């Protein structure tokens, strides 16, 4: 099973990686329990920075598509197929769209929405 990423594609490299791995799971090219390459191996093979691959793996683990078992390595999650079909980014966009629409309906301007959102995100960060 091979993946291919385009370094000149506007889609970020880590996002391409995530998409390709999820597609592989959905196509049954990767099955639950299959061992994935280490971050270093994949980064070297694709000639990417380790951090790019590490970010992709972190997000895939958050979405329960893969699971890391310490020194034993990284494996496809038992429920990877179901979890791969779920697109968290799409959910974020949908929810934000609904919220922004609701706020506009009550008369809030885009600038007010933007400032409030920025403030809330900063407060959450602290």
């Amino acid at each position, binding site marked *: 099973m*091979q*993946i291919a990423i385009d*370094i000149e594609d506007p889609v970020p490299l880590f996002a391409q990686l995530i998409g390709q791995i999820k597609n592989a799971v959905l196509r049954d090219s990767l099955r639950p329990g*299959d*061992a994935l*390459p*280490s971050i*270093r191996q994949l980064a070297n*093979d694709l000639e990417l920075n380790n951090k790019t691959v590490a970010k992709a793996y972190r997000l895939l683990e958050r979405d329960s598509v893969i699971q890391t078992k310490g020194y034993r390595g990284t494996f496809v999650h038992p429920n990877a197929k179901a979890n791969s079909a779920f697109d968290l980014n799409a959910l974020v966009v949908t929810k934000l769209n609904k919220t922004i629409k609701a706020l506009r309906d009550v008369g809030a301007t885009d600038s007010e929405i933007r400032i409030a959102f920025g403030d809330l995100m900063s407060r959450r960060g602290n």
Partner: protein
Amino acid sequence: MREQTLQMLFHVVFLSQVLLVSFYLPRKILGLVQHVVEKYPPSRYPKLYPVSLDVAEKAQRNYWNLNLVVLAVGMALLLISVLSPTEEMLDWNTTLVLTIYLMVQLLPAMIFIWSNPGFTYFNLKRTVDSTTTRRADLHRRRLVDFVSPTLLRTAIFVYLAFILFVAYVGQFKFPWFGGYLNVVSLTAMNLFFLGLAMRQVYGKKKDPYQASEDRMRQLELLVSTLVLVSIGATLYGTLQIGLQALEWDALTGIATSLYYQLLAVVSLREFRIDGVNFEVYREDPMATALE
């Protein structure tokens, strides 16, 4: 009489080393290169030639000429040894002379690898590679995937047996015996091989165009060759200590030369091209379509 027979045998074996490493093997390698150039010419497989054919041919000529010079040196050494009244080569230490000569025999290959276009061959390929797509296999590679369990177990067994052998010979307190330094040297060599293998298995792809299957095959060849060399070196070390302990010094030169020839033959495995997918080096179909 026995010494004379052994001395004659040594000269025959050394002649074999000179001819094998400085004539037969370079000829075979250059023949392979020529075969590739004829079957996969630059006009149809441009990605295989990051430098012009003229530059590559010049490097090949230099490689061959250097081997001929080393061959002449070997013949001179042999003549001196035949005419010399002493048993030791150059009236020095036969094993040391053989080792130094082997280093000299490897020089043409080292010069080729470390000079343009040898060393920079893969870097040049990467420079001219204009593709923006990068591919990788989604399965984990482990070092043990590239060597048979039997071979690996043999290497470990031979290594442990060597340690026990050194401990046994150490009891006799031979003045020439280096003791556990032999184990340290062998361990250092094995660690070096391990590092080399790990670098190839987990490191960056040298050839940006190489097909995945070819890379796996090459890794298998490399790792198994390193394990074979490790076994060979351990057995050779054991043999050398044994021969010296039994005071069969006359055989050490023969054993050394045969061992070096075996190493040279095993290393030729790295130059196999059967089954290699050369289609990846063809002209880019998109580029051709756009012309």
